[in-house]
């Protein structure tokens, strides 16, 4: 039987990596990801997991070592946040273009400067075009489940792409939750050992990462893009199988609240649960608002979102990062461009909030709803809660 225990979410992620039987872990500690790799290094040192733990000298090296190990055919895990993810930048693109199924936790934290160790999504938004599958967890159990599923999705022969599992720094990483830790036997059945299609093997030499002359480069990019887009079907399959085996069902996006409500909140990450609670306040006066939580960010679940937004008159998109020098935050920009495909487009209200770890309460979501109701900030964005006066 799976056991339900009170555990810090970071430690639960480490437990998930152990259950997934990762063979190589290459990581550099950075707040708020530290507890995950700290715990994993102990698990490996204790002999509880037969893996190579590589304590590298930087995140650039972490991702480089992960790529080397994955190319050699190992199941590889790493984790990082903020500046660490930024330092990985050039290597992240190599992992996806080499089609290596590395799994990485991103404990989302603001990018400097000013220096901030707290949570928002500016780190991953700066890397959103890296060609990885990108999912967002909303609570500890979800991140535990997604971490194990991430290996299964990444290693599927129809996918072969790295997966980033995002979890909000501190808000999720340092929270103690009641989590069901699944049995090793069941996880082994769900996640068989990784069998690479191509790997570095002296007996059968191949070259990975050669120069792509102009006659090849575009074909390589198309191949990669098609693999990422088509991974959506595999992700759905894996979510379904997980639900069958472990009883927790996941979709690419989740909806909540009265279907007939014409105002729709869209969130990604842990704020979805605050909105869930805010809906109770807003809907006291009737079926006013509902919500959509995006779990899969890349590939972008356009079809599912368009279906979920049917009947919406006003869409309130919550962003956790500024996309400097353009209109809208990264999520709202995507949503707006998607809505252009509809004949009747709902109004878009974009609130960029929770920057650098600032709390966003359910009362504030109610205020956002009220602004949208009054038509304020229609088709505009607002950096939420900024002091205008001393």
């Amino acid at each position, binding site marked *: 039987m799976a056991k339900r225990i009170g555990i810090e979410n970071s430690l639960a992620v480490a437990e998930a990596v152990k259950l997934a039987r990762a063979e190589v872990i290459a990581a550099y500690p950075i707040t708020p990801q530290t507890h995950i790799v700290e715990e994993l290094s102990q698990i490996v040192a204790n002999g509880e997991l037969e893996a190579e733990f590589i304590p590298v000298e930087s995140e650039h090296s972490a991702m480089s070592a992960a790529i080397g190990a994955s190319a050699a055919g190992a199941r590889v895990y790493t984790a990082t946040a903020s500046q660490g993810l930024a330092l990985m930048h050039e290597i992240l693109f190599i992992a996806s273009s080499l089609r290596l199924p590395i799994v990485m936790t991103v404990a989302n934290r603001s990018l400097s400067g000013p220096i901030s160790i707290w949570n928002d999504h500016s780190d991953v938004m700066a890397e959103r075009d890296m060609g990885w599958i990108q999912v967002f967890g909303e609570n500890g159990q979800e991140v535990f489940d997604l971490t194990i599923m991430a290996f299964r999705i990444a290693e599927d022969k129809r996918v072969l792409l790295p997966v980033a599992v995002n979890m909000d720094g501190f808000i999720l990483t340092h929270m103690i939750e009641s989590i069901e830790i699944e049995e090793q036997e069941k996880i082994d059945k769900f996640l068989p050992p990784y069998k690479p299609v191509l790997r570095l093997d002296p007996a059968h030499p*191949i070259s990975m990462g050669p120069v792509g002359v102009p006659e090849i480069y575009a*074909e390589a990019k198309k*191949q990669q893009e098609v693999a990422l887009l088509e991974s959506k079907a595999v992700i759905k399959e894996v979510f379904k199988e997980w639900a069958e085996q472990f009883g927790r069902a996941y979709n690419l996006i989740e909806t909540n609240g009265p279907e007939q409500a014409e105002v729709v909140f869209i969130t990604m990450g842990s704020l979805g649960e605050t909105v869930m609670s805010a809906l109770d306040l807003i809907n006291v006066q009737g079926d006013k608002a509902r919500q959509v939580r995006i779990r899969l960010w890349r590939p972008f679940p356009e079809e599912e979102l368009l279906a979920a937004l049917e009947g919406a008159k006003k869409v309130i998109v919550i962003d956790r990062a500024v996309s400097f020098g353009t209109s809208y935050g990264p999520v709202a920009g995507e949503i707006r461009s998607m809505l252009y495909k509809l004949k009747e487009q709902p109004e878009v209200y974009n609130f960029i909030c929770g920057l650098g770890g600032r709390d966003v309460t359910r009362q504030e979501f109610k205020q956002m709803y009220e602004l949208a109701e009054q038509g304020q900030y229609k088709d505009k964005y607002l950096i939420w809660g900024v002091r205008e006066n001393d």
Partner: protein
Amino acid sequence: MNYPSWRTLELGAAITTPGNAAELKTGDWRTEFPVLDEEKCVKCGLCAIYCPEFCIHEDDTGYFRADLYYCKGCGICVHECPKDALTMQLEEK
């Protein structure tokens, strides 16, 4: 050389046939090619030693000749020939 489509391109553009760089026709890159004047040539082989592409080889008659499949037309052989036996000629198609 036939290039694969995005469907048949190896996963992640990997090269699964070791040594296939030998098939790459670098001769396509050149605008001029070296021509040998056998009257002046003393068969010293300095051109072959200096050739950065290693595409100059001695033939049955003892003369050193560039393999034009690979010769990129850099002209180093012409520059190094102590007898001025090599000249560059414009490639015309």
